């Protein structure tokens, strides 16, 4: 076993930590992964993001070795791991519901990985490393506790420590924070990020919480029905979504759907059902438009300007000007979120930063307002 791990570890440096080459996974008739190719670089914080059932867990299980691909190749550190059982792979996993051993105390859970080695390290060494990890996850003194005497957040930490004790080259995390409450989740997100920087190993996170993926990852892989839709940095995905699905999934957006009527170099014109035209810049990662195809214009809520109705749209210097009425206001601390009912475009979401709000004063529900945006702020997107 030792031999195998070191074999995998001693790869040619420079090859990515994890690589999928046209991986397909079928469960009977269900296609869980469909011809997926991707690579995760050393030391990267990589996330799989997508709705339920899109194949995120399946991807992790293929890396951990609990499943074998139906077709294609999976490599860890440049070496194919097809047929290598989980206990011989240099990756460890934090399970969705932690899967801590109920018949062992905290220390024994964390030390489990060390005890599987042959030869088994001496007890003193095991204790030393367990204590080190307990300290790292801020659980010093909890070693003798039983698993059921821990809170959800503490169990989460123990699971993390247990998965780190064998110093894996890649740590897999399957929705590790899903069971925690919002506040604790924020704290753990920050801790996980810090931890990843400290230990310097590759983290692969599965989540269906886009906020979590955006705030933590270096790179995100957006999936749908077993396929990769787009892969890129959070910024890329947010600013340059390749299609409507990604734009809708990552962050909030307003969409105007219609069909392409004109393409001129930098801009695409889309006509909506009412015959109004809107202009947007095609996303950098879009594959190309042609006149007549279905397309959407997307505008992020923070790029829309609102002013009171009588200060006319001219002084906002926007390319698109609309009238509307405030339908709802949500105060979010740094921002105020307005839902504005417009004629012809339905409800539009606007995010207004605090400094602007305090300058011109907040709008009240029912108040008539003018709103608009610059064409450069709008994105033209393909529909699929």
């Amino acid at each position, binding site marked *: 076993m030792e031999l195998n791990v070191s074999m995998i570890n001693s790869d040619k440096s420079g090859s990515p930590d994890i690589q999928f080459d046209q991986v397909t996974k079928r469960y009977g008739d269900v296609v869980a992964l469909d011809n997926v190719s991707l690579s995760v670089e050393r030391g990267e914080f990589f996330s799989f993001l997508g709705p339920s059932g899109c194949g995120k867990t399946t991807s992790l299980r293929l890396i951990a070795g609990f499943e074998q691909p139906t077709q294609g190749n999976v490599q860890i550190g440049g070496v194919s791991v097809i047929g290598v059982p989980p*206990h011989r792979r240099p990756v460890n996993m934090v399970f969705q519901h932690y899967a801590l051993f109920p018949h062992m105390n905290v220390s024994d859970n964390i030390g489990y990985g060390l005890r599987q080695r042959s030869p088994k390290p001496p007890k003193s060494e095991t204790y030393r490393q367990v204590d080190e990890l307990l300290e790292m996850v801020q659980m010093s003194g909890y070693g003798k506790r039983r698993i059921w005497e821990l809170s959800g957040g503490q169990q989460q930490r123990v699971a993390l420590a247990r998965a780190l004790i064998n110093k894996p080259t890649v740590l897999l995390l399957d929705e590790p924070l899903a069971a925690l409450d919002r506040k604790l989740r924020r704290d753990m997100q920050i801790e996980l990020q810090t931890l990843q920087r400290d230990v310097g190993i590759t983290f692969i996170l599965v989540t269906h919480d886009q906020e979590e993926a955006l705030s933590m990852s270096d790179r995100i892989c957006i999936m749908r029905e077993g396929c990769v839709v787009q892969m890129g940095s959070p910024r890329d995905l947010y600013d340059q979504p390749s299609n409507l699905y990604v734009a809708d999934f990552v962050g909030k957006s307003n969409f105007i759907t219609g069909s392409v009527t004109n393409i001129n170099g930098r801009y695409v014109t889309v006509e909506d059902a009412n015959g109004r035209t809107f202009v947007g810049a095609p996303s950098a990662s879009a594959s190309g438009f042609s006149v007549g195809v279905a397309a959407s214009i997307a505008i992020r809520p923070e790029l829309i300007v609102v002013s009171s109705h009588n200060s006319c749209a001219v002084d906002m210097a926007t390319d698109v000007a609309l009238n509307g009425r405030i339908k709802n206001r949500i105060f979010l601390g740094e921002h105020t979120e307005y839902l504005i009912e417009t004629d012809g475009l339905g409800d539009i979401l606007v995010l207004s930063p605090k400094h602007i709000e305090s300058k011109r004063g907040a709008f009240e529900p029912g108040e008539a307002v003018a709103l608009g945006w610059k064409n450069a702020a709008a994105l033209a997107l393909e529909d699929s």
Partner: protein
Amino acid sequence: MTGESTKGRWLTVALLTPTSAWFLVMLVMPLVVVAIFSFGERSAVGGYTASFTFDQYANLPSRFTAFRNTLTYAPFGTLVSLLVAYPLAYFLAVKVSPKWRLLLLVLVIVPFWTSLLIRTYAWIFILGGRGIPTLLDYIGFEGVRLINTPFAVVVGIIYGYLPLMVFPIFVSLERLDKRLLEASNDLGGTPFRTFLQVTLPLSMPGVATGCMLVFILLMGEFLIPAFLGGGKVFFIGNALVDLFLQSRNWPFGSAVAVTLVIIMLITVSLYMRLTMGRAADRNESIM
């Protein structure tokens, strides 16, 4: 509030009364009667004459063989049943696809649909002269005797008690969170080590329950040794049948029965201590 709690108390009393009455009449009273008889004397025509003497207990050594047999066959039979039942339960709970599981489980219980008496008769034929020994004859092993041997008794015990052992173990294995096995695998545990360190310890409650059930029932067993042991393997159960039904020596029979109950209580409580102690021990580190 007081009203609520008195009402609650009355409800508790009402719910527990039938059970307590049943327990008292059906379990405690007969035991008391047996205990009283055990200090009495056999009347001339058999049965019981009131008296207070320890003679019956002093006479216990005359049934030493029966005690010895029971106290060796019961633990041994329990152990062998466990060794046979565990792999079967493991197979049913872990390896078989859920589609087939129910059918196979039903097959394990099917024998219970006829009485043990009839099924043990069947074993007399299987192990008897015209059963397996005849087959062995054909392939060259002549003169093998199976019926009326300790072997036959053990076979009967395994056969009769297997389901009692399989079910509790099956339940504990079935309930076992399969992700724990994956976690162990993921952390470098080979399948065999995973079995030893995760599956086995977590199925111990089932093992303990199964062993307890089989052991207690085996201590009182008389049918299997009588049919398959042919009087050569004699349990306390057989001694009791003899004493009460043949020689009508009720006081001595009662003394034997009381002794059996006491032995049973002692072993079972020792066993509980041990398994509970184990559970408590697990609070200590296993590194």
